[in-house]
């Protein structure tokens, strides 16, 4: 009921900032729902993505494009409304086929494969959290594909909006206004400096503990990126770019995926199938554990690097606008920013 109210309000409101805030609450609620349904890993993903990263991404989009809806032409509005309604009805129709919550005859409880995973996987793999081996081992190809999707998304953002370059190809590096404001917030600086190590450490815990509790590469990557983002917010993007070089981050996107694929190739070189971790050690189960850890590490690195890179890309645009706003920009930059604004609307 709450979810419905929020979704409705978020669609109706024309102030996009308001909508972004409401989506924050929406995420909190859906995570609670996942917890109630006892889907700890999903809830953790929702917590990690919804609470920090997605809000930040939405807000940085707003900062680049401006934050009120401009009504488009009537025909196109009708078309998008029709598409949305049709999609919604299709989804509702699909839920009619779904078994009732807690129905003992639901396929989840009766399906042989699900039964096999639940009964055999803890014994076969020696990993108490059955989600982790399912994602990283039984369905290793799927997860490899997902990581590749994250990789592609990062590359796509870089290709679409990229990092700001001047006409002559040099990067826009001067951001004056962004850092100047930080000096004011002393309390914030102290508190955040205490919190950043805790967040990064916790990301490490989630990364390494994925075998035993909820967690794993995706969640850890997002949490780690949130810690880095807090650092960026704290010291300003320019300072952060000096510490975490954007070039290194772009390289790390590829390295994470390479780690994942590399593990598979090593498996093949050792005589197994692609991503057959049991070849990694003499004892098959140990090999499996090493393989899952390595693969999750690759996922974590890719996710962290992609998110950081996206934030850098957005920050570059914000900076360009800010420089323009303060009235000391060179002409081509201003023109570019206006073109971008036109595209965003």
């Amino acid at each position, binding site marked *: 009921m709450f979810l419905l109210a929020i979704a409705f309000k978020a669609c109706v409101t024309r102030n996009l900032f308001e909508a972004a*805030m409401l989506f924050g609450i929406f995420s909190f609620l859906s995570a609670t729902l996942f917890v109630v349904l006892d889907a700890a890993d999903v809830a953790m993903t929702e917590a990690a993505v919804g*609470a920090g990263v997605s809000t930040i991404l939405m807000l940085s989009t707003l900062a680049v494009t401006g934050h009120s809806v401009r009504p488009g032409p009537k025909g196109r509005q009708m078309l998008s409304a029709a598409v949305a309604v049709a999609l919604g009805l299709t989804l509702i129709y699909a839920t009619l086929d779904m078994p009732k919550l807690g129905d003992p005859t639901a396929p989840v409880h009766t399906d042989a494969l699900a039964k096999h995973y639940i009964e055999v996987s803890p014994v076969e793999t020696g990993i108490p959290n059955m989600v982790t081996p399912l994602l990283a081992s039984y369905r290793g190809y799927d997860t490899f594909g997902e990581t590749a999707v994250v990789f592609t998304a990062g590359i796509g953002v870089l290709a679409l909006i990229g990092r700001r370059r001047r006409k002559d190809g040099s990067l826009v590096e001067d951001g004056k206004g962004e850092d100047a404001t930080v000096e004011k917030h002393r309390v914030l600086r102290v508190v955040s400096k205490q919190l950043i190590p805790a967040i990064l450490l916790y990301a490490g815990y989630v990364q390494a503990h994925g075998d035993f509790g909820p967690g794993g590469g995706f969640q850890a990557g997002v949490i780690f990126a949130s810690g880095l983002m807090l650092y960026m917010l704290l010291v300003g993007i320019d300072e952060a770019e000096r510490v975490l070089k954007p070039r290194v981050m772009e390289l790390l996107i590829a390295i994470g995926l390479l780690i994942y694929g590399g593990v598979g190739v090593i498996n093949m070189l050792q005589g197994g199938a692609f991503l057959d971790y049991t070849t990694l050690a003499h004892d098959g189960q140990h090999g499996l554990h090493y393989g899952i850890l390595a693969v999750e590490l690759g996922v974590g690195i890719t996710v962290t690097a992609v998110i950081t890179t996206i934030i850098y890309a957005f920050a570059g645009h914000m900076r360009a606008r800010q420089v323009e706003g303060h*009235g000391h920009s060179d002409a081509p930059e201003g023109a570019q920013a206006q073109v971008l604004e036109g595209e965003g609307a």
Partner: protein
Amino acid sequence: MYSVASLLLLVGMGLALWRALKGPTVFDRILAVNVFGTATVLMVSVIGFMGTSRDLVDIALIYALISFTGTMAVLRFVEYDEDRKRAEASR
């Protein structure tokens, strides 16, 4: 005891939600989202202790750590926005 606690938390969440929907200023909404986040942290841990799975405390911890980042980002955005408006007005 746990069910009473979760009910009370639900009421608190409802009140915060009402504030977030009603507005009227930006800061009302930010505060409402923040309160809602805190309530969620508590709710998740209460649910965790209600059942058998202690893992849920991990999730509550993530929320506690990360929603701070979110709130800070929102506040920085508001600040940045005000700056920009002022710059536009002075031009």
